[in-house]
């Protein structure tokens, strides 16, 4: 692990000029992207933030240490003894500030789907609402969970050239890479009052031009699927009938005993057992004079990162931005944050062709042409349809043979 002081690391990052990026020659037709980084990004320190993202991979929470460029999120605040008139005035100022279009520059060039290369799109950051049953046209019952995509915006994009340089500073030798094709896009959900946050946190949203978000995630994105910061994301980003991966934290139960956490049997209630009712037996010790690693014992239960893969989208509501996803067992309690991406499984990827693929890079709403309020899968039963009936068909009777079966000899 390469260890650096805070000051020296920041000095290296700030010395990364954009000229170095251009020399590599990886940036081809995204000139607008490069100009964006020349003007805004690399001069400011807002590029180098690191904050509480929605988790992407599993790590041990107990040993979690904050990186040196950690940004404190909550803080600031304003004078509580302010007049009511002035309060309303400040609220109006906020609305005026964010009512303008967040896109400061001319729109970037939209990438196109390329059948020969990697097409990795953005994902969404949703909120789990609960589960309800649905029925197919065959009369089968399905359980679906509802996930709302609330107020999602693209907030930042970091090109792969910068990512490589970053990784070389932070990561160990084994993890270092010199060439990568994927950039990193940052997506936030639920905009809120900027007066409750620190100025360091607000710097993150300066370039996107949207109010600060309660939660952020990062997605690895291929270069043709780049979306300009400030664009809103909707549930129509996905298509009905496609498959997705979903990840979130499970319900946390705190410190639990061995019976609840691992389902051990415990001891007898009576028959002379003392102080041995909900305990486990021996933990064992071999020649190493220590218990084996991974021994099932009491400890913190739940609140772990879990991911489900290959879930079908049955139905989409475009009024409230809601996805109906297959299965009642998406991890976490109601109103927990859920991270949704295109499924990486081959059964999903093989469906896509150059003609039929999900909206690329995202769904852009067209003002002239309004879309339908709800999309249904072909196999799903709509409640406005009449009751399901099955057609009768006649089984053919097996005709009896008239005479005895006689073998014919070939002449």
């Amino acid at each position, binding site marked *: 692990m390469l260890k650096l002081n805070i000051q020296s690391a920041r000095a290296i990052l700030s010395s990364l000029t954009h000229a170095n990026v251009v020399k590599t020659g990886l940036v081809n037709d995204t000139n607008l992207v490069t100009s964006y980084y020349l003007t805004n990004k690399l001069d400011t320190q807002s590029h180098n933030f690191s904050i509480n993202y929605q988790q992407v991979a599993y790590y041990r929470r107990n040993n979690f240490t904050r990186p040196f460029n950690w940004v404190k999120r909550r803080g600031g605040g304003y004078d509580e003894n302010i007049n009511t008139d002035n309060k309303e005035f400040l609220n109006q100022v906020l609305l005026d500030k*964010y009512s303008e279009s967040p896109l400061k520059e001319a729109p970037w060039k939209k990438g196109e789907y390329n059948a020969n290369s990697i097409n990795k799109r953005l994902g969404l950051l949703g909120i789990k609402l609960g589960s309800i049953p649905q029925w197919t046209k065959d009369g089968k019952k399905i359980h679906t969970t509802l996930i709302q995509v609330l107020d999602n915006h693209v907030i930042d994009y970091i090109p792969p050239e910068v990512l490589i340089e970053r990784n070389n500073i932070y990561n160990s030798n084994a993890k270092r890479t010199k060439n990568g094709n994927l950039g990193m896009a940052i997506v936030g959900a639920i*905009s809120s009052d900027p007066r409750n946050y620190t100025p360091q946190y607000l710097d993150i949203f300066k370039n996107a031009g949207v109010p600060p978000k309660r939660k952020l995630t990062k997605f690895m994105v291929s270069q043709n699927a780049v979306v300009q910061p400030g664009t809103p994301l909707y549930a129509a980003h996905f298509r009905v009938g496609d498959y997705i991966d979903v990840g979130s934290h499970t319900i946390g139960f705190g410190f639990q005993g061995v019976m609840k956490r691992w389902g051990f049997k415990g001891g007898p209630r009576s028959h002379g057992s003392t102080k041995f009712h909900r305990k486990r037996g021996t933990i064992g010790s071999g020649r190493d004079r220590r218990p084996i690693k991974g021994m099932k014992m009491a400890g913190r239960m739940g609140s772990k990162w879990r991911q489900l893969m290959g879930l079908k989208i049955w139905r989409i509501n475009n*009024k409230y931005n809601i996805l109906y996803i297959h299965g009642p067992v998406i991890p976490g309690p109601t109103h*927990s944050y859920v991270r949704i991406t295109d499924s990486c499984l081959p059964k999903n990827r093989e469906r896509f062709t150059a003609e039929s693929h999900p909206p690329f890079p995202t769904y852009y709403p067209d003002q002239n042409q309004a879309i339908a309020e709800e999309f249904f899968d072909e196999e799903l039963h709509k409640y406005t*349809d009449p009751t399901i009936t099955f*057609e009768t068909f006649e089984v053919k009777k097996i005709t009896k043979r008239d005479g005895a079966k006689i073998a014919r000899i070939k002449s």
Partner: protein
Amino acid sequence: MFQLYEKIPYLLARQPNALKQTIQTIAARNYTNTVPNRILEKARRSKLGAAAKGPSVGSDERPKLEQAEYSQAERDYKYIYPDFLPNPVYYFRDKIREKLERIDMINRRKQITIPEFYVGSIMAVTVSDPYAPGKSNRFVGICIRRDEYGLKHSFTLRNVIDGLGVEIMYDLYNPTIRSIEVLKLEKRLDDNLSYLQDSPPEYSTIPFDFEPVKLLPGMKVPVNMTKVPLKNKPWRHAWDRKALRGVILPEIKRYQHEEYMNSSSDFKPYEKWDLMKNYRETIHDDDHREIVQDIKKFESEITDKQEIVTAAKKLVRTRHIPKETPSNEKK
């Protein structure tokens, strides 16, 4: 009942963990990665959230709720349509999910007539079945239970056929259901008649050619006051531990019974006086108001078409089941 009231401190002393456990189970859940319910509702309505609204419709206007007091007919919706009530557990609730569920339920109710029925009423259900001859199946029985909330709502019918007890659970909003008929509308003394499993079969046998009984408008929904004797043990559940009204228990030795009652964890007669528990497990009138508006709108669209709804409107619901009249035999 008065004797039980005296026993409460004794029972609480025996089971001090009963209240604690309910509190602990809620408190033990760590809602780390969630949005609080209050903030989520605020965010859905805030003007800062530009992308909160979907691309299909411009604005999500909340319906204006009438502040007038309830009429008696509107209060009865809780008993006629118990499936429209949401789950009262607060950490399962979500306003938009409940609304979307309600739209689906009403759309389904426009396709077939789902009449008013209670636990204890005799019903007939026909379902389209791919494996049955004629592709449909009809079943008659007593309604034993009604479970779950919203689209998940289900009811079970029980009958004894050729000496064998049969129970079928139907989802109320299953689109394969062709028709639901109420042959005899009545209530029983209990909300759950699962104890018919351990009673003699004549209490749950109903002929398949049962003739429907009509009620005159202006009548109260009748309450069937029959008490069911139970068989000897073993039972499916410990019925004597539950405070049931429509059951005649077999004779148990007195000292056995009292020990049994006191030691059991299911027997909680003191919960009747727990006001907070009642508040938690019921939906308040203000919370119910949005549902009433949706049902009113649905009924106004459909009353001309469906005769059953109009006939049921004229009935009078008794909210409290009448107390037992003292029999003359004791005197």
